[in-house]
């Protein structure tokens, strides 16, 4: 009889990387929440100015603010770990030389920053 070593319930607390892994998996809940929140916004806009104002007031409530901040933290964690992974997946060669992994990650973070800056600019100009 072989003995099957059980996986303890709290196995993921044993290593930092395990914790990060579980948090990253959990971040999908945060993404789902943002989708729901966005859909609520769209519905409110569709229903008219009154409903929109109601939605804004509801979103400004401390509880919803906290939920959104926590969700934002999860989504940022997801994005950062995803970009850090990029150099593992992408092996780019330029003139026979492998581009250093740091450069690949830096490129991703740079692109993220540029896109965010453009979005922020559009929002500011539109307002």
């Amino acid at each position, binding site marked *: 009889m*072989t003995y099957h*070593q059980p*996986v303890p319930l709290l196995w993921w607390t044993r290593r930092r990387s395990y914790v990060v892994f579980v948090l990253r998996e959990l971040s999908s809940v945060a993404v789902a929440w943002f989708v729901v929140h966005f859909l609520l916004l769209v519905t409110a806009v569709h229903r008219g100015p009154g409903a929109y104002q109601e939605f804004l007031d509801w979103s400004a409530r401390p509880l919803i603010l906290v939920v959104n901040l926590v969700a934002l933290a999860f989504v940022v964690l997801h994005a950062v770990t995803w970009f850090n992974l990029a150099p593992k*997946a*992408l092996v780019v060669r330029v003139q026979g030389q492998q581009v250093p992994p740091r450069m690949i990650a830096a490129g991703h973070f740079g692109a993220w920053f540029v896109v965010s800056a453009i979005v922020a600019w559009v929002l500011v100009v539109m307002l």
Partner: protein
Amino acid sequence: MPDTITLQVARYRPESESAPTLQEYEVPLREEWAVLDGLNYVKDHLDGTLSFRWSCRMGICGSCGMTVNGDPALTCGTFLTDYAPGPVRVEPLANFPVIRDLVVEIDDFLHKLPEVKPWLVRDDDGGVDDVEFLQTPEQLDAYKQYSMCINCMLCYSACPVYGIEPDFLGPAAIALAQRYNLAPATSAHQRLDVLATDAGVWACTYVGECTRACPKGVDPAGAIQRYKLTAAARTLLPWGKR
């Protein structure tokens, strides 16, 4: 430096117990002694019934992998002095069924290895005997690290996905597939049906512990993430299917 150190060794005797227990042994603490030397001292001088695997004592055969103080390690390359004053807990590799004491069942891994066709597979069925496959040093560099694997299974032991999903093909098998995918004389898409599946690369959530655990610098996590890109390109892009 004290001259002895305590080993807490997991014992499992299936004929008399239903779960492993820890047994303590006092072994000499010598500067040049690895954990494996401590175990061999136990076997030779204290308790001949202790079972464990080892062969080369130089990080080549891959048979001495165990869990040392919670981390997967080659016991021939892990030194007792690094754990002084002790105690040092020695347990079987996690995620594998235990046969006896520190000996784990490796059948699952041995069945997975050939699934990835770890040999040169070519579309043109010309016999390998008649041709010479030339490769440049750069082409060799592209896959060389993946060929350094010694099948020690430390990466499987470190991988929580494998612990939860035993069907997962796993780090070393996928790294081995990449070793042949990236060799210039081979047809990479031949392994798509095994690798681009739920139990293949898509089971991996990139914890990265396999790469940290690997004593040979193989970077299986990198191999898997790289193949994810290949698999996505081949299955999603219209011109990827060739």
